């Protein structure tokens, strides 16, 4: 894995003289690697050519050796400047020209040193602590007057994505959305990753968590049992949802219906439309979902499994919520903050059948997290990609089919 890198430029008649080839060869033979960021070849023999190369090495010492070896051949380290910071003019306001983040790994240069920005996430600012030489992302609403915020592009570098070691559906890390691609191999790759992550967690090899952000269609469409099984088997550690998924899940346990429809019969039951309200009311009376599960009122289903398995659940409310259930965060800024808190350590994200949760979660995730977005409507994965989550793989299919197939591939017998 790359730990040190520097950008160099080469100029002159570097193509015909084989200088470019020589420099690249030196980088490789000395144990480094490179990305050709830009090569402009002179149009006529008199025109010089120009190359910008990102040199990478496993250690700083190797990088230093490489730079020392290639400099006599004309490789010049690109002029680097410290980032520019300005104090925030007021609480909740960035200075003009603030640097707006991507979800790619990012460094800023402070006092001639490149510092890694902590908690990368798109569409935020970067706050720096000059005393401790630290930098992290900060949401606009959280900035306080006088905080030092990075402005402009100088002294900021975004590190291009490394291709994952596994050659699976995530290997290309680019949004691909198609309803016409065979789904089974995508799901097989997701299953393989989930199995690997669970194994790593069990053997203490890595903290990587699997996040699922889901909508109530999981319940309506018949994916409840599969998701319950995935939670019970230790495949999921974080659940993002709204009031509805939790309400319909527990409605199914208490009444056997989802939004009034009998789960097993496929028709509305008398007074069924009130079932979800009665469910919410019951849980409110008990005080919390946890208490409802622990007291035995709620016995089965996704929420019960999450409580028993210790899954970190964040329920974010919307303006049309009934109730809502205890634990639903109704302030959207607080909900965003709670979701943000749960992101570190996530190594795989499944965004299933929920437009708003999918986009919100996509915005919070670093690009390095493999992400799959499943929705019956192709516009959801497309929207996610349009909002910047280029690494998400889109799967156009219904939530239940996806979850059932995923659980089957992970060993659930029907």
């Amino acid at each position: 894995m790359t730990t040190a890198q520097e950008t160099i430029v080469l100029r002159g008649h570097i193509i015909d003289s084989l200088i470019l080839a020589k420099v690249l060869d030196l980088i490789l033979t000395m144990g480094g690697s490179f990305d050709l960021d830009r090569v402009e070849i002179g149009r006529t023999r008199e025109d010089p050519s120009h190359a910008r190369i990102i040199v990478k090495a496993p250690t700083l010492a190797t990088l230093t050796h490489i730079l020392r070896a290639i400099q006599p051949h004309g490789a010049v380290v690109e002029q680097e400047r410290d980032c520019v910071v300005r104090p925030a003019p007021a609480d909740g306001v960035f200075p003009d020209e603030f640097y707006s983040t991507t979800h790619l790994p990012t460094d800023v240069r402070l006092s001639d040193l490149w510092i890694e920005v902590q908690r990368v996430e798109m569409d935020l600012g970067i706050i720096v602590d000059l005393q401790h030489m630290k930098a992290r992302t900060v949401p606009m609403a959280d900035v306080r007057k006088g905080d030092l915020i990075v402005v402009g592009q100088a002294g900021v570098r975004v590190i291009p994505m490394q291709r994952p070691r596994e050659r699976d559906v995530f290997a290309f890390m680019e949004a691909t959305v198609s309803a016409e691609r065979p789904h089974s191999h995508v799901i097989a790759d997701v299953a393989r990753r989930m199995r690997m992550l669970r194994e790593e967690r069990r053997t203490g090899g890595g903290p990587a968590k699997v996040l699922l952000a889901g909508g109530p269609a999981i319940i309506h469409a018949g994916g409840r049992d599969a998701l319950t099984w995935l939670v019970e088997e230790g495949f999921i550690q974080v659940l993002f949802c709204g009031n509805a998924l939790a309400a319909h899940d527990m409605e199914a346990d208490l009444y056997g219906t989802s939004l009034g429809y009998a789960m097993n019969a496929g028709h509305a039951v008398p007074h069924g439309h009130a079932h979800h309200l009665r469910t919410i009311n019951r849980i409110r009376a008990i005080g919390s979902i946890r208490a409802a599960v622990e007291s035995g009122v709620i016995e089965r289903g996704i929420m019960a499994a999450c409580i028993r398995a210790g899954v970190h659940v964040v329920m974010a409310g919307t303006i049309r919520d009934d109730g809502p259930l205890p634990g639903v965060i109704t302030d959207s800024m607080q909900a965003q903050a709670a979701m943000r808190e749960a992101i570190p350590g996530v190594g795989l994200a499944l965004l299933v059948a929920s437009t708003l949760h999918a986009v919100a979660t996509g915005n919070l995730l670093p690009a390095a997290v493999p992400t799959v977005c499943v929705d019956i409507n192709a516009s959801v994965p497309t929207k996610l990609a349009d909002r910047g989550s280029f690494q998400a793989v889109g799967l156009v299919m219904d939530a239940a089919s996806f979850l059932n197939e995923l659980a089957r591939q992970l060993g659930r017998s029907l």
Partner: protein
Amino acid sequence: MSRLLVCPPDYFDIEYEINPWMRRANTVDHASAVAQWRGLMQVLEQEVGVRLERMSPVPELPDLVFTANAGVVVGRRAVVSRFRYPERQREEAYFEDWFRSAGYDVVTLESEFFFEGAGDLLGFSDCWFGGYRQRSDIRVFPLLSDVFMREIIPLELVDGRFYHLDTCFCPLSGGELLYFPAAFDKDGQEVITERVSDESRLVVPEHEALRFACNAVCVGKQVVLPAGCPETERQLHSRGYRTHSLRLGEFMKSGGSAKCLTLALD
């Protein structure tokens, strides 16, 4: 008719060691050096038919005699050298003064770039070659390419004995090239074979390269080179060149020969 800049060897000596040829213990026979230099001038003027511009020698600048390193001249424009070693950096002001007083449009380089003039920049009408690594900095060639509007192909010099390009590489007026391949790295050798056809490349054997066979002055079909290079002369004769071989041993003690003692002005 060609014009060459030369400088009499009044103060020529070996006072420091900045290349593998120089040994301070190796005393220069001053009378012999003067006689060899005069012999070269005589051949150049009377037999080759060039005009010589003599610049005044300066005490304590023993290498001012090697005018090939003064800079590079094209038309009315002169780029003055920036020497790598402090011992020779003191020459820069004198060369610059000479170019200015002779009416040249003088171009000076940033002091961070080393460039040792026609010692490291040679070529044909359409394409030039720049020697780097030993004395000149490769980064100077894109700048010179902009100044002179020529393609300059850098060649890495990998043998310390051939520390300037003109010690191992001599383009001839008919498009042929006299050179010693082992002075260049693999890439440099490949580039040369790509740019100069098989029949135009005259390879100098090592023992003659070490006698500075490539440090020759070519004007028209005449070539002035150090004595003791019969194989090189044979190859030149076969291509229709007339050769003038001269004893220049006193200057070879400093790592220079016929070419190093002259700078082409047009």
